[in-house]
């Protein structure tokens, strides 16, 4: 094996932050190389420099023995560097073939391209129909589109940013098969993920970043997930054991909830029923796009439903809007941090006010009590270890993980009776994720009921007392999380309700 990409002393600064500081490492041909680090450690900036989206301040890269300094992604792609983004750059209203054409610099005509797509997708075990609309595809299938778009350009290096965070276990297996095949064919893969078990199973080498610097390298197969996590945070990882679950009185009951999705590519909810007791954490698993956004909207009050279908402490609240529900103790934190859970251009104080007004009584007589609101925002920042220069900064200036801590903290500190969270740790590093889970756990211990909607099965298994799966808008019957195997859950997520019923019985 010879060196494919040699990175020497790469640095990049943004106002106030050194995103990358003298980063050096090498990627061999055909190797699967992991890039590890907490949120804000500088992984994204680093790969953006390799892909030509960001230009380094100093340092050099050598690709295949040639100096490599792509001013634009176009040049990177020409040299054989491709990237699959965490947030796909796909166009929902266009077909698979059209999406792939757009990502190629020299595209063959339609027929030829369709034939190529079919050929490559079968070769690597990623079946795809070129004529389908992206909007009709599952998340796993969308990722295939991105991967095939890259593969059609014969890459030498494939960069993958958090590729498995939204896949079912079976889809992850398929993806790993594809990646191993690619690696056998000599394609190097730079793999970014928070899931250390996956890195252990898949990657040949790992480079660990902390605060923009390379702090360690390792061979993942010789490490444990815990030891790698400690390299990332540079200290001991605190893992809190699950506490004993003693269910209390009924907190929330949902009966036969139906909701037609407003999104043309969304999933409608069909006869969703469950009961949630005080002190219980219900984990709702399932592949994204199976009704998660809709169930959050129905529970938060963004979508009003028949009053009797949602009962909070025995009272019908289905017809109430979000504020009325907040007043009664049903709080929620949606998945999309910027634009849904928080207003990007508003300060943390203002964002704290937006959901805390009623329960924290921040605006008595309709006038904002500024001191009290600032105090509330500062309390969130302090108790949830939100790293920010102050509460006066705009929400969008925070990194994803920090904003997520703020969003969850804001709801937890309003002492809800029932809290609904969607993807509480999406894109959040291990240490922050652990502290968010701990906060939710404590909330449940104090007597509140919590619903965690997530695609991260390990997370659901760790945190939830009871577990249900959302598949095509239907919710399986919640059952104790103990004794469920990941395989069974994976099949349920794929929509196999027979397994669900079997597990049920």
């Amino acid at each position, binding site marked *: 094996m010879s060196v494919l990409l040699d990175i020497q002393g790469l640095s990049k600064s943004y106002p106030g932050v050194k995103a990358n500081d003298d980063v050096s490492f090498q990627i061999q041909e055909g190797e699967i190389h992991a890039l590890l680090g907490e949120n804000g450690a500088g992984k994204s900036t680093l790969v953006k420099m390799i892909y030509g989206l960001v230009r380094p301040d100093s340092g050099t890269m050598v690709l295949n023995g040639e100096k490599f300094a792509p001013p634009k992604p176009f040049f990177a792609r020409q040299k054989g560097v491709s990237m699959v983004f965490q947030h796909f*750059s796909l166009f929902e209203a266009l077909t698979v073939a059209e999406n792939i054409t757009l990502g190629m610099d020299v595209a063959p005509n339609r027929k030829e391209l369709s034939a190529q797509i079919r050929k490559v997708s079968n070769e690597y075990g990623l079946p795809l129909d070129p004529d389908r609309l992206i909007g009709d595809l599952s998340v796993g299938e969308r990722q295939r589109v991105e991967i095939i778009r890259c593969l059609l350009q014969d890459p030498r290096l494939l960069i993958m940013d958090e590729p498995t965070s939204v896949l079912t276990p079976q889809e992850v297996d398929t993806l790993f098969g594809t990646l191993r095949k690619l690696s056998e064919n000599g394609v190097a893969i730079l793999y970014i993920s928070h899931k250390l078990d996956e890195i252990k199973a898949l990657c040949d080498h790992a480079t660990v970043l902390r605060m923009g610097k390379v702090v360690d390298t390792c061979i993942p197969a010789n490490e444990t997930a815990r030891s790698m996590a400690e390299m990332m945070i540079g200290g001991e990882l605190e893992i809190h054991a699950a506490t004993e679950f003693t269910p209390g009185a009924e907190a929330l009951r949902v009966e036969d909830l139906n909701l037609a999705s407003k999104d043309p590519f969304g999933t409608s909810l069909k006869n969703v029923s469950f009961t949630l007791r005080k002190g219980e954490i219900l984990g709702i698993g399932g592949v994204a796009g199976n009704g998660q956004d809709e169930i959050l909207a129905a529970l938060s009050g963004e979508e009003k439903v028949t009053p009797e279908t949602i009962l909070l402490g025995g009272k019908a609240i289905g017809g109430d809007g979000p504020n009325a529900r907040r007043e009664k103790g049903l709080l929620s934190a949606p998945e999309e941090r910027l634009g849904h859970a928080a207003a990007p251009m508003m300060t943390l104080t203002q964002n704290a006010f937006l959901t805390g007004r009623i329960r924290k009584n921040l605006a008595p007589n309709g006038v904002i009590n500024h001191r009290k609101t600032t105090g509330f925002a500062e309390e969130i920042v302090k108790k949830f270890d939100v790293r920010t220069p102050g509460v006066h900064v705009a929400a969008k200036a925070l990194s994803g993980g920090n904003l997520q801590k703020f969003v969850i903290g804001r709801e937890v500190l309003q002492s809800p009776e029932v809290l609904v969270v969607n993807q509480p740790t999406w894109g959040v590093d291990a240490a922050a994720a652990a502290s968010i889970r701990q906060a939710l756990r404590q909330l449940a211990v104090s007597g509140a009921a919590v619903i965690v909607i997530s695609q991260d099965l390990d997370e659901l298994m760790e945190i939830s007392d009871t577990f249900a799966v959302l598949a095509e808008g239907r919710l399986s019957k919640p059952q104790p999380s103990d004794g469920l195997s990941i395989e069974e859950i994976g099949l349920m997520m794929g929509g196999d309700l027979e397994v669900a019923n079997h597990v049920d019985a």
Partner: protein
Amino acid sequence: MDFSSLNAVAMIVLLIGAATPILLAAIGELVVEKSGVLNLGVEGMMIIGAVTGFIAATTTGSPMLGFVGGAIGGAVVSMLFAFLTQYLLSNQVATGLALTMFGLGMAALIGRNYNGIKPPRAERLDVPGLSDFPILGELLFSHDPIIYFSIVLVFAVWWFLNRSRAGLVLRACGENHDAAHSLGYNVQLIRFGAIMFGGACAGLGGAYVSLIRVPQWTEGMTAGVGWIALAIVVFASWKPWRVILGAYMFGGITILQLSLQALGISISGAYLSMTPYVVTIVVLVIMSADRKRASLNAPACLGRSFHASH
């Protein structure tokens, strides 16, 4: 009531004439909206096109140069909108409304010495033999060249959007500008070009009003045609062929109400004059009723400003 004076063939010819300015403006706006930009200044660009086209035609004595002048006039004012919205990131709705008001005022100022002048006449197509053919000759071979051009233009736009790579890139910008940017496309430049094309089409439509439809220059002579064109883009669900349908339907209702007024029907003229507009509103309500379908066809980034974050 005596309907015998309504000559069907003559009415269709009139209908096509009434529909053409709408068709031109609407097909231009369709391209603009497909790129993700909502330009509400169609009316303003049309009136500018009407006056610059009129001036170009009367000064040079050539109606064809008049049409070229109208298209250039429309394109130039649209650049103002493009610069403000694409590079200074101003709000598209507010800027579009301002463009309409600016255009109306500006056109009145430029055209104040041209009131009451007759422009040179545009020759109609006259194919010996074919044009004299009864009915069909009159229907198909007796129009002015711009009418044929407008039909060809619709076909060209359809081909561009659905068959060419450049058209696909333009649609991609309208669907998801962040993704288009991350793939390395210059969203601002593409939108700038689309806005200019829309301006040229609206200007051409305006020149058609002042050179053929009326033909003379008076202030505010486009009389809301630009707004109708905007509505027709929605009516057509952003599909070029349906723009023809919408424009001709609107033209038909306009001509029909004029004919009914001429017949002296006992309904007040005011009600008849408002029918085309009322019908447009009703059709829009029906089209928008099914939110799912409407949002499926609309470009997902329509009206949203794009700012590259890296």
